[in-house]
């Protein structure tokens, strides 16, 4: 794990400010994600965690601050960021409910195909290998999937973009305990395959176990950061996010 923190920086965010109208949602957030590392963002509801991911994805305008992607400025348009290897699994999943599982996955490669990568659609086989359940349901409409299958499809769709950094917004939201374990197994598997991960997760205990590094955001500011194992022992983090000691 310590090897990951010395790896070259994939994402480097400095002093990021984001506003909704007059309300400042992020007031100067800095964070780094090394290639192949897992960083988790912890914080209460309304702290600005989803705002952070949406701003990094290019879905929200940045008021000020700097984002460096693999040592350079990231492309401006969302689809170009996807093509550059930055993929988001949104909090509400945002699946195309009236399309089949297979078509949902193929759309995940849209930006890649558009950027000229002809073989991008073939990646569906590796996604099916990782999620055999999705292969079984390939012809089924996404709207008829159970909660766990939906989350797998949302992750699988992001993987079709062959991400270098996968941003997961609340992957275990609304999932039964057995499925939550599956999801964390998948996250470890992706890390082993070399994908860096930026993780927002309600289950802070599991998130701190899987992550290398963690930052705590409260009301738009980073209030604490450090190696995940250290933050897991921090009394303030324990009291607010872990409980039970």
């Amino acid at each position: 794990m310590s090897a990951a923190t010395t790896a070259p920086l994939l994402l480097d965010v400095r002093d990021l400010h984001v506003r909704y109208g007059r309300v400042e949602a992020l007031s100067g957030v800095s964070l780094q994600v090394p290639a192949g590392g897992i960083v988790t963002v912890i914080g209460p509801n309304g702290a600005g965690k989803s705002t952070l991911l949406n701003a990094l994805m290019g879905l929200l305008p940045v008021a000020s601050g700097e984002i460096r992607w693999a040592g350079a400025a990231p492309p401006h348009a969302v689809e170009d960021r996807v093509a550059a290897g930055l993929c988001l699994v949104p909090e509400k999943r945002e699946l195309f409910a009236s399309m089949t599982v297979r078509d949902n996955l193929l759309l995940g490669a849209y930006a890649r195909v558009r950027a000229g990568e002809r073989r991008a659609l073939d990646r569906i086989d590796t996604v099916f290998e990782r999620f055999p359940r999705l292969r079984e349901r390939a012809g089924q409409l996404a709207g008829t999937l159970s909660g766990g299958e939906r989350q797998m499809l949302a992750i699988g769709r992001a993987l079709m973009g062959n991400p270098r950094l996968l941003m997961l917004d609340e992957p275990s939201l609304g999932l039964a305990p057995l499925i939550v374990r599956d999801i964390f197994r998948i996250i470890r598997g992706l890390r082993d395959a070399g994908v860096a991960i930026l993780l927002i997760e309600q289950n802070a205990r599991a998130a701190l176990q899987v992550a290398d590094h963690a930052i705590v955001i409260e009301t738009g500011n980073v209030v604490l950061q450090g190696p995940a194992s250290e933050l897991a022992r921090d009394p303030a983090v324990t009291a607010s996010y872990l409980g039970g000691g």
Partner: protein
Amino acid sequence: MSAAAWQRALPWIALAALAALPWVGAPPYWVTLANYIGIYAIVALGLVLLTGHAGLTSFGQSAFVGIGAYTTAYLATAAGLGPLATLAASVALTTASALVLGVITVRLSGHYLPLCTIAWCLSLFYAFGNIDALGKFDGLTGIPAFELGGWRLEQGRELFYLIWGFVALAVLALRKLLDSRPGRVVRALKKGALMEESCGIDTARYKLLAFVIAAMLAGISGWLYAYLQRAVNPTPFGLGYGIEYLFMAVVGGLGHLWGAIVGAALLTLVKDWLQGVLPALLGQTGNFETIVFGVAMILLLQRAPEGLWGAVARRVGRRPAPPPPAGTAPLPAQPQPPAGQPLLQLRAVRRTFGGLVAVNDISFGVASGEIVALIGPNGAGKSTLFNLVSGVLPLSAGEVHFDGRRVDGWAARRLARLRMGRTFQHVRLVPDMSVLENVMIGAHLRGQRGVLASVFGLNRAEEDSLRLEAARQLRRVGLGEHLDQDAGALALGQQRTLEIARALCLDPVLLLLDEPAAGLRHHEKQALATLLRQLRQEGLSVLLVEHDMDFVMGLAERLVVMDFGTHIAEGPPAEVRRDPKVQAAYLGADE
């Protein structure tokens, strides 16, 4: 005055400046244009309510204008009635026809209403043009001038004040209405009809209300038109004008009252200007202005899709709701039943979708003052069961008893009257209304004031009480800091807690909570558990679906476990947790 206050006062200042127009030597033609703008604006104001807020599209407003104008023309010429009588008759007839048309069509969803209004508009146009008594396509002429108690309004500049007086009245009345108990319901219709039904609200009634009010305004506009023009014929009441009224409201900014006036003014002035300029420019006549006009409007809507006034309003922002004054009477709460009585009973409840059995003969009960948790894998049928209990979905078989009555087959809004409150797994709120207003909808059944009381300002005490109650429940769930924010700007976990506050505003005996703790952090879950325990102490019962076992363990008296639509276990949490069937289906072996 702050910048925002200035921006809010600006439209009234502009209106006052407009009032001086006839007296500062403006050419009569300007006054004529202003008169038409006012007449169109009244119709467009109705569409702000109907289309902008209730989400119902009508292409047929010109037909209602026609009813108003023809009623006035006929009664004034054939029966010699004065303006007060013709106004009453115009409003009565438009209201009656809107009621008949609305009862038939408003319940239909989607494209049916717009299609019906088109058909209505076309048929009325030909009816006007073919009835002998109405002068066929030549129409009626020789309408006597507006004369009321010695006031004779004949010239354009005299009628100007009458017309713009009605515009100002319409703006004031609609503004009062939109900021009231019935108005909030109308504003939430577009995005929250299912949620409103679960708050006990008959949404079809409020759709009809919006339809009738919009038609009444169109009728008044027709009445004014008859006295301005002193003659009527079918042409200005055809479908083309019906589309144009809708266009005015859209260009000005659907959902913004001032936008209706801006849109009416813009369309009228630009069209008039193009009609003058284009033939000179092109050296030939023809309806070129229509083409240029269409292109200009497409460009405008591309640049400002929320309309002209929408773009302005976004910068001004929301005015914070005033805190209820000291001494506001709290809403009375009804007593809770004594603890331990059977409150909710499910008997072999079954629901099938085609061949799939989603809920398979489930039976269990909830006693008053009890917290019961329903757990099970994703797709086990828990949310379907919730929808069966709360009247959102009909049962295929079985019985539901609530509060001593058999209630299966009851609609959601009837169950709300028995004080059953619920939240939704996929949050249902109105994102562009404030947090406070969203929660006030939950207290709808605890107020009585209707449209007339709201328009005349007789609802203040009740509004204060409703606001007090909503703010109290929001503080209780920990959202006291966010009252004036847009509900859509809250984080997802906060939106879920907003739904709990909204359900509490119903003064419920039973709360159905669908994954209330999803997305909450540890300390937020603890706060929620504390609140639910306190509610139990007050005599409420809670049935909740939840996946966080730690949350459920310390809270619920009893767990009911579902898998594949079937009841597989029930009992105290510690016991259920050890059940091998539950571990295999749901929990996994203990680590």
